[in-house]
């Protein structure tokens, strides 16, 4: 019997953002995310105090999923970032830092939420339309005919995750592998609508990163003994495959809601086994070479099939079913009776392979878009981080395929964008305000808060006490090391801007990022030759960054708009 209990009344708090507790928790969260940002970001070790799993990471997805946030406002913030990351994989920390900065900066101003939200929205749409426009000075087209830019994109992602613990050489190797794995998933003769394949990441922990590799087809892990038992097939033509999704263990399937009475002496097990052997006979007569089963195959059937030189592999698991279906072109069989001949598929060849201490059964496809990425790393935590990074990189490549543009990374986009907004709000405020009730002063204040939030994101790239500068022509970011002499010849100290597009040999003017500057027009429209010549650019995914920007501003607006928090205490 259920117990009815009176509900406790909820706790209702007004103006939640003004309380000290919320401010401190927000600033703690901000400190955590800022310190993780960028290639020189600090790692976080997360463990739950009861022993068990320890996670070392600097990625937002791992970090936020392990953090336990209790305050509802923080929960809104973290879930919105997690949701962003789960749909775009990249730019999670950027979103988090920008959102925290926006809330903090705007709160200091003390304007009414209505004005703030309205203006933030205007500024956001200004950013979005600039980043999407032809004249945008911080994005470059992605050329799929050469691997250069794609490699830059992958490499930037790998270098920005220091917890992977990769050396320079390893980074090069892994980025090349990721790119290969991605290219293998693109169908060769695609017309119009492209359906991408899948790269499966196969773990191989405790090995050197350099040993990682990409293989076409699917690897099924097996014990050595099992593998020895499989007889080698020598066949010149493709192998015929039957893939079962139903169990072949001899269970009696669903008998309905009524009762089934079995007379004494009747053995249903035997009856079912007979049925299974009949199935085996059919498979033999259909000249099947390979039987794969998602669930369990009855040992007798297995034995029977082996006797007739058919390889039978069971317990494949549901995760491999879809790639297997796709690769072999089979139709998963759900019947123990007659099998339709067109539900068989084929593979080009099978072989056994040994990587490290693991043994695999390798299915080699005829022509398919499924590949396996064997990923090695020294220890568990570093491997987990590397796997997440690879997934991110693969996802980013997919997104880039849809929208073939990349943004300049290394903080250059943010500084450039901030310069653009400053210039726009100073020189053309009417076009932004239009028919709104906001005044120009309010716009200046909010724009300054917005730009400095963007610039603080960039500022958090620097963790070693260095200085960050910006040039007054392109609006790019330049960083100086901490121990450099204060007044010096800038071109000698600075070699390259953050993204690596420009070098200091040009006649440029620099100023400190945090100092007040006169607004200037950042040069738009990237010259083509500049993009072509640079081989080592730092690049970001356009789609992910655009969405990150939107999510950050929308979430900040949402949080600034809160007037009450009602906590259900049940």
């Amino acid at each position, binding site marked *: 019997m259920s117990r009815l209990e009176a509900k406790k009344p909820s706790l209702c708090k007004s103006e939640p953002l003004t309380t000290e507790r919320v401010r401190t928790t927000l600033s703690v969260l901000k400190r955590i995310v800022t310190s993780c940002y960028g290639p020189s970001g600090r790692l976080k070790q997360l463990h739950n105090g009861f022993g068990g799993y320890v996670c070392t990471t600097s990625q937002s997805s791992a970090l936020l999923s392990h953090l336990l946030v209790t305050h509802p406002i923080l929960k809104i913030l973290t879930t919105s970032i997690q*949701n962003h990351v789960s749909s775009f994989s990249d730019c999670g920390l950027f979103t988090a830092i920008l959102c925290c900065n926006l809330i903090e900066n705007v709160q200091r101003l003390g304007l009414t939420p209505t004005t703030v939200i309205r203006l933030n929205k205007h500024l956001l749409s200004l950013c979005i339309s600039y980043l999407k426009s032809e004249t945008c000075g911080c994005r470059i087209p992605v050329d799929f005919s050469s691997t250069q830019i794609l490699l830059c994109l992958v490499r930037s992602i790998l270098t920005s995750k220091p917890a992977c613990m990769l050396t320079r050489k390893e980074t090069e190797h892994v980025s090349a592998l990721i790119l290969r794995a991605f290219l293998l998933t693109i169908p060769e003769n695609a017309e119009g609508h492209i359906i991408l394949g899948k790269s499966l990441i196969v773990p191989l922990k405790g090995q050197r990163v350099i040993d990682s590799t990409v293989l076409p087809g699917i690897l099924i892990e097996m014990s050595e003994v099992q593998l020895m038992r499989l007889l080698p097939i020598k066949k010149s033509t493709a192998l015929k495959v039957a893939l079962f999704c139903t169990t072949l263990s001899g269970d009696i399937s669903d008998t309905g809601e009524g009762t089934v009475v*079995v007379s004494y002496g*009747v053995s*249903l097990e035997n009856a079912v086994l007979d049925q299974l052997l009949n199935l085996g006979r059919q498979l033999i007569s259909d000249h099947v070479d390979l039987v794969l089963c998602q669930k369990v195959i009855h040992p007798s059937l297995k034995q029977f099939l082996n006797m007739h030189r058919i390889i039978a592999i069971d317990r494949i698991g549901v995760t491999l079913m879809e790639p297997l279906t796709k690769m072999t072109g089979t139709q998963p069989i759900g019947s123990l009776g007659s099998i339709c001949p067109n539900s068989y598929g084929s593979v080009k060849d099978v072989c056994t392979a040994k990587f490290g201490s693991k043994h695999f059964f390798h299915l080699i496809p005829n022509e398919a878009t499924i590949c396996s990425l064997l990923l090695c790393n020294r220890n568990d935590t570093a491997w987990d981080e590397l796997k997440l990074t690879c997934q991110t990189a693969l996802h980013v490549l997919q997104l880039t395929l849809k929208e073939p543009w990349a943004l300049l990374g290394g903080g250059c986009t943010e500084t450039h964008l901030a310069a653009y907004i400053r210039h726009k709000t100073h020189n053309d405020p009417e076009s932004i305000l239009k028919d709104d009730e906001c005044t120009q002063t309010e716009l200046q204040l909010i724009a300054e808060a917005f730009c400095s939030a963007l610039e603080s994101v960039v500022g958090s790239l620097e963790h070693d006490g260095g200085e960050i500068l910006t040039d007054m022509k392109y609006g790019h970011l330049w960083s100086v090391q901490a121990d450099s002499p204060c007044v010096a010849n800038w071109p000698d100290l600075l070699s390259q801007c953050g993204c690596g597009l420009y070098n200091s040999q040009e006649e440029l003017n620099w100023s400190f990022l945090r100092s007040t500057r006169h607004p200037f027009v950042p040069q738009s429209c990237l010259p083509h030759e500049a993009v072509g010549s640079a081989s080592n650019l730092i690049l970001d995914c356009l789609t992910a960054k655009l969405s990150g920007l939107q*999510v950050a501003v929308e979430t900040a607006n949402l949080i600034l*708009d809160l*007037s009450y928090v009602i906590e259900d205490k*049940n």
Partner: protein
Amino acid sequence: MLSSMAAAGSVKAALQVAEVLEAIVSCCVGPEGRQVLCTKPTGEVLLSRNGGRLLEALHLEHPIARMIVDCVSSHLKKTGDGAKTFIIFLCHLLRGLHAITDREKDPLMCENIQTQGRHWKNCSRWKFISQALLTFQTQILDGIMDQYLSRHFLSIFSSAKERTLCRSSLELLLEAYFCGRVGRNNHKFISQLMCDYFFKCMTCKSGIGVFELVDDHFVELNVGVTGLPVSDSRIIAGLVLQKDFSVYRPADGDMRMVIVTETIQPLFSTSGSEFILNSEAQFQTSQFWIMEKTKAIMKHLHSQNVKLLISSVKQPDLVIYYAGVNGISVVECLSSEEVSLIRRIIGLSPFVPPQAFLQCEIPNTALVKFCKPLILRSKRYVHLGLISTCAFIPHSIVLCGPVQGLIEQHEDALHGALKMLRQLFKDLDLNYMTQTNDQNGTSSLFIYKNSGESYQAPDPGNGSIQRPYQDTVVENKDALEKTQTYLKVHSNLVIPDVELETYIPYSTPTLTPTDTFQTVETLTCLSLERNRLTDYYEPLLKNNSTAYSTRGNRIEISYENLQVTNITRKGSMLPVSCKLPNMGTSQSYLSSSMPAGCVLPVGGNFEILLHYYLLNYAKKCHQSEETMVSMIIANALLGIPKVLYKSKTGKYSFPHTYIRAVHALQTNQPLVSSQTGLESVMGKYQLLTSVLQCLTKILTIDMVITVKRHPQKVHNQDSEDEL
């Protein structure tokens, strides 16, 4: 003593409760309102500006508070709007009542009579007041709506005869609605989305039925996607099911679908029966039979061009396999709501696998335009192009947002808007009593006469919807002629030209529809016989443009916008159907109706108007109770615009607006509203009646007895009047 405190506190306690609720609710009312964050016990967070949700989330303990929340919930369930206004209005009413008792109680206190007696005296007084409230609500309110307020109503339909919806006025209505329901950075977008949805789903002849369907199945008609910006929300043609295909086989050409509610594969035994297995061979043959039977059924479906199987239960592997072999896509495990939605759209009953093997055609199949997987943020959905057999053209809304809480808020608001529209498109019957021995008598007589000319009286009370419409059609033709002739006369007059000149300030480049409607209203005000002008817009428009063609661009723009709002004079034109034979006596019962689609500009217009007319009414009243009740209601009504104009200063502050409005009413000039947007009169009317009912409920309670845990144990009759 204790019980006396309880009784005296009944209004006081209710007021205290309502004031606390008002404080919370008033922060998110109106366009300037802000968001409230609610956490659920499960740890989820919900953003809301929905008054009903907030009140429920509070989990109030106080019995009166719980009663108020219940009243709000039941009101919301019906109308989908007005929870916040409910609380504010109730609070002001209670304040008014409390003020009266305070004034009267003081001398009593000095006299120090026995408290027990005073308590009962008070109780009976409250009872009188509550009865007076009830009388007001049932007998007087409708009359005021019909006789005074209706002349200010606008209609959302561009032509009342065919009830064609005017898109721009629907936009205004929805924008005003969403202003109070979703975050202010999204309300424009969401209202646009709703408007698009509305027009995409409707066929030209769809009626109330569509609203019912969409309202009932709103949960199934939208899909929430987290992690994307709100601006990615969109409308998709066809139905999106939140499931993936169990097996998908691309198909084209003539595609049919079936719905099943049980497993297609025959089972050994059904519920309540027994299956006796005597031999292994028997088992094998029955298994073989089952297999062959399933295969045959699926083949048969295939032969009938069935390409899609929709199942409310999980189908066995065997069925899925044979479906795949036969090129049939399968969607399993649909909820009963989803199945019933599909059935309502295509009017299809479930397919029952035939017992005996039949080669005949399967009766229960339906054509499908397409069925394909839809990928939203790397999650797969089933996208069906159903061919509708009802007036609803299936479309799904994809709602995106950074967090689930925000998506839920938007979903909630969209659903509320649907409810509001559903109410708006209903006619409202007004029944009231009027005194014929005062001035009203002549006017009601006039109405009677007027209506008698053009149409027969429909059945009182239970007149079907169909008939009055036919009447209206007949009437409208007459009216059209009248209007045209009248307008010709009107345009021959020289006055309007001059008069209109003065209204030019209203038609500034940033023309708002409400502004332009005033121009029209001016025209109507100039007309001596207001009743003559029906909502025939086009003749009026034509007339205008011929008469003032010299006016230039600015007016031209305003004429385009004029489409937005139309003047309904139907309220006063509608028949006074039932009149008691005893005309000569002092009272007569009238019944009339408010046509569907009546709206008023936002910004407290309804409240100020009703306030004004109620005060006028109260002046004419003879009975003290009636006067008092009218006064209290009239004053409480002003509480709502007061909150709405809280943040406004200077010319737009509440006192200025109020004075302007009253002045305009006194001099018979059109009301000027500083805000754009429209709101449903129906919603307001229902809100008013709900609040009054809630108040009568509160007033009739004389004592609150708290029973703790064990009712059988004898308790002191202690009351609870502390908050």
